[in-house]
């Protein structure tokens, strides 16, 4: 069943794919950060962003499961 929470979970999991596969959006040297070209620090930043998104998806999913089990037949 499609619920708003599940849509959010799907978006969290899909976002890194859009960001990372769209190479043209980050294939440039500027702005550099501490001497590191944009291309590199941007992707490293996405390690953290995608981790946060996956963690969020995990929390939402846990809650979703609890609601489903709690509100089910029993």
């Amino acid at each position, binding site marked *: 069943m499609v619920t708003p929470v599940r849509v959010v979970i799907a978006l969290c999991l899909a976002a890194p794919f859009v960001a990372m596969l769209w190479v043209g959006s980050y294939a440039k040297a500027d702005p550099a950060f501490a001497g590191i*070209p944009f291309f590199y620090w941007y*992707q490293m930043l996405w390690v953290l962003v995608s981790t946060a998104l*996956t963690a969020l998806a995990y929390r939402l999913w846990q809650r979703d499961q609890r609601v489903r089990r709690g509100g089910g037949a029993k």
Partner: protein
Amino acid sequence: MNGVALAVFIFFFLAVTVMGFLAARWRRAENEHSLDEWGLGGRSFGTWVTWFLLGGDLYTAYTFVAVPAAIYAAGSAGFFAVPYTILVYPLIFTFLPRLWSVSHRHGYVTTSDFVRGRFGSRGLSLAVALTGLLATMPYIALQLVGIQAVLDVMGVGGGETTHWFVKDLPLLIAFGVLAAYTYSSGLRAPALIAFVKDTLIYVVIAVAIIYIPIKLGGFGAIFDAAGDAFAQVNPATGKPRGSLVPGEMGQWGYATLALGSALALFMYPHSITATLSSRSREVIRRNTTILPLYSLMLGLLAVLGFMAIAAGIKVKNTQLAIPQLFEDMFPDWFAGVAFAAIGIGALVPAAIMSIAAANLFTRNIYKDFLKPDATPEQETKVSKLVSLLVKVGALIFVLTMDKTVAINFQLLGGIWILQTFPALVGGLFTRWFHRWALLAGWAVGMVYGTAAAYGVASPTQKHFGGSSAEIPGIGEIGYIGLTAFVLNALVTVVLTVVLKAAGAPDGVDETSPSDYTADAGDPGVRTELPKVTEGAGH
């Protein structure tokens, strides 16, 4: 020869050897003569052990040597490893828990077990098992290449003129020891050693990423030097050596390599072995949120490739760039720690890979085709022996053939293993695909991928010179594995429609929908092994 570094290296090597043998007693269940016990560590690992085990398993010594080496050789293109590992985790979040659940309910040890149960097809299961074996063997061989790189830089084994036996003796000893404790302790040995390996790696990276830039004048200076080096035109090819940022031309290749590799990673038998050894479904989902820590480390490690350029490291074999950087930059004792990190980093995955390959052989070739009535004791015995054979095979491979052969095969292995994706991941979500269509799709993908890779030339090789080629119909250069995978999926879908219309017999599905969401504690889910009083007949 660097005596201090060698002494530190030997110290760590001895320490993990002792741990490897002691591991047999760690969390031992009463019923130790079963494949669940030897090959999956009793399926009992919690979140952190699984984290170390998967990290130790996926981020291999070869990764540590090859990723920065690729950056050192050509710049930005080698950085695809970072988006690749970013994409892995959201991906496995969706399907790995389902595989865990169905495997625990039916006692599956390998992915081929699942494919056989789901599609009722021994042929398809055999195809998946053979692909797994083919893809894993060269991967084990590459771990040896990783150890060799470290030994070379330390000056162990002598020069070109040394007798081959003396030259290869250190490698033989390392592998003999590895084989012995894998045989006696099973998956518990790499699980325990992974703690040491990852701790060492994290320490070395943290130090390298702070200490080396200080010595080289900061990141700005490092990237400037690298940019200059890449801009120089290589007289052999008439093109610049590489680039700091991928140009228009390289972007398809970059994205398809990242995506294709991400899809392939958890098709490898050793990834699945580490996954199935975890205690519960939750352990896996939780791990997808903490495993990216390794991606961060991998990104930092990749940057070491630029540092090697800025530090003026000149090596003919790019694989030696990073060990040489450590040797030149660090004090002797810390270089020893760094070498130990890489060396032990080879032992953990090599052990897990050989166990995974052994499990595949035992379950899906020995038991399915040779001896259907094998008892759990016999299965374990065969698996232990095969784990030895697999390692000996890898050793002979590395010692007798050129290193590029191992690298070529590993490249092919990635393309091949991706072709099992439709059967495995498709099967986890739907039973719509027809088993014969999956088999045909797999065959098409394998043949196309191999042929396309054969056709890739590089300045140094006529065939298998790389993993990217023109994508038919699009005209851009992309990862061959992904193109083969798309072909595979198309063939599978079309043939499924045709076969269903023709009324071709469908196999028996032994799983039920609730199997895919079951968790530890649910009825019928095997958690820890039965105690000894219940006997081995489970």
